[in-house]
């Protein structure tokens, strides 16, 4: 029997809920003002700035070496890649020729950073969707990468190992051995990640067909990184504009066309395999050479604009330096991947449930200081 439509359909008003600065699913201090009707989301209006530390204003008064130290506080999960972006931009300005050894080491460390970031993302995505064990599995493996970073770069998270002109000092003698150990260990653990979460029916129901972003919208919103590649928009900077040693390694760019949360999840998991294979291709033949091209103490970029983009774990980070020839830049702008991805959140989350918004945000993998700068 058909569902009898009650005459006086009880009208429910929309109201506002703060998915506010201090919220477990906000991955930091992102405030989303949700207009909701019951459980369905009518509108998502982000209110940013709760971790805006005015990095771009500081860069206008800092020397180029000092800017490098600020960038890894921006997207702290791909801190090495951010540093590399600024160093490459400065080296492009100075037309410095970087020895091969530096390029290969930078690429290996970038891929290790990407792995560490994807591990944390995987652990926290599981936790957001309700599976707490993924957090402990992911952080157990992440500790191994942190030990490698600590031994070579001296810091676990914000490692300022890159300076314009190369690396601060050479790699640790048993860096190669430990990286090989880690790669062998993690190759046995990554299938464990798949067994733990990817096949779980609850997880699939929570993510399949949730938050679909079509390819045209992905381009129109300027989305980049695994979020774009999950919607069929191949935007990998490592392929389109290869930098450091990415032109001499062969790796597959993973692109999926479904565009839903599960596709973004799969893209990142497969990207971890690609990162492992890149490290394997490079770790055995690190060319000899010095680890630094000495530059003048006070770096002065010639007059002009320099734009360098790199592929961080979250997407394309672009460093735009407009220099007028003296020791600190005239204007520095960081094209942050998180900020453009956030512009697509409202379009994707509209009409879904609040629970879907949590899994969508986990699949977008926001790092809020990267958005607020």
């Amino acid at each position, binding site marked *: 029997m058909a569902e009898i439509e009650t005459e006086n359909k009880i009208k429910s008003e929309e109201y506002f809920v703060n998915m506010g600065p201090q919220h477990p699913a906000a991955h930091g201090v992102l405030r989303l003002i949700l207009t909701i009707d019951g459980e369905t989301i009518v509108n998502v209006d*982000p*209110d*940013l*700035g709760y971790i*805006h530390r*005015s990095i*771009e*204003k500081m860069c206008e*008064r800092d020397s180029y070496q000092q800017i490098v130290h600020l960038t890894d506080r921006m997207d702290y999960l791909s801190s090495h890649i951010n540093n590399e972006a600024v160093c490459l931009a400065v080296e492009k300005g100075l037309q410095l020729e970087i020895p091969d050894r530096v390029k290969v080491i930078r690429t290996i460390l970038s891929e290790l950073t990407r792995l560490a970031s994807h591990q944390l993302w995987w652990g926290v995505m599981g936790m957001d969707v309700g599976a707490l064990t993924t957090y402990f599995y992911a952080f157990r493996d992440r500790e191994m990468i942190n030990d490698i970073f600590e031994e070579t770069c001296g810091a676990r998270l914000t490692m300022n190992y890159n300076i314009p002109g190369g690396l601060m000092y050479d790699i640790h003698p048993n860096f190669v051995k430990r990286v090989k150990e880690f790669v062998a260990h993690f190759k046995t653990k990554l299938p464990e990640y798949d067994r733990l979460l990817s096949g779980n029916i609850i997880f699939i129901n929570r993510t399949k067909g949730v938050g679909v972003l079509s390819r045209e*919208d992905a*381009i*129109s*919103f*300027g*989305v*980049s990184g695994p979020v774009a590649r999950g919607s069929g*928009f191949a*935007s990998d900077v490592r392929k*389109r504009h290869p930098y450091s040693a990415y032109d001499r390694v062969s790796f597959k760019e993973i692109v999926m066309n479904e565009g839903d949360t599960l596709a973004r999840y799969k893209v990142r998991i497969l990207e971890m395999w690609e990162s492992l294979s890149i490290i394997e291709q490079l770790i055995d033949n690190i060319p000899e050479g010095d680890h630094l091209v000495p530059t003048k103490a006070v770096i002065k970029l010639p*007059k*002009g*604009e*320099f*734009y360098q983009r790199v592929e961080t774990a979250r997407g*394309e980070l*672009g460093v*735009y330096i*407009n220099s007028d020839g003296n020791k600190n830049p005239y*204007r520095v*702008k960081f*094209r942050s991947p998180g*900020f*453009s991805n*956030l*512009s*697509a959140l409202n*379009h994707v989350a509209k009409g879904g449930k609040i629970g879907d918004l949590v899994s969508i945000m986990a699949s977008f993998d926001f790092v809020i200081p990267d958005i*607020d700068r």
Partner: protein
Amino acid sequence: MSNEELIKLIDTWGFTLQTTEEGTEFLTFTVRKEDLHEFCRKLKADPATHFDLLFCVTGMDWGNELGVIYHLASTDLKHEIVVKVMTADRETPELDTVCDIWRTAEFHEMEVFDFFGIRFKGHPNLKRLFLTPDWDGYPLRKDYVDEANMVIK
């Protein structure tokens, strides 16, 4: 499409432009304030150029003019250009919005308004995104002074 062909094609559109390539790696167009919106719409609509990706919007303060620099790319034709636009009026700077052409501009223009004070005509809800609504002054301008918070070194 190479830069020369782009320059030739865009010249046929009849906008008053300055095109330069020195000092930057991109082909840069400086367009007038009035026909910014029309120029951008043509850039995206014309199948020969089809700039469908706006990947970077930078607010700029060149000393006496305020302006915005748009980095545009075409995903299928694989070429990139930079469009610059300036406005000399520092009290109430006003530019056309491009968020009806590229959806991401909505957020980026809010950011430029927040830090430079450039209002965008036609923007759906132009508000301060990062700073508190009652923040006076626009921090990224060169003449911004704030002794209360800033410890200058």
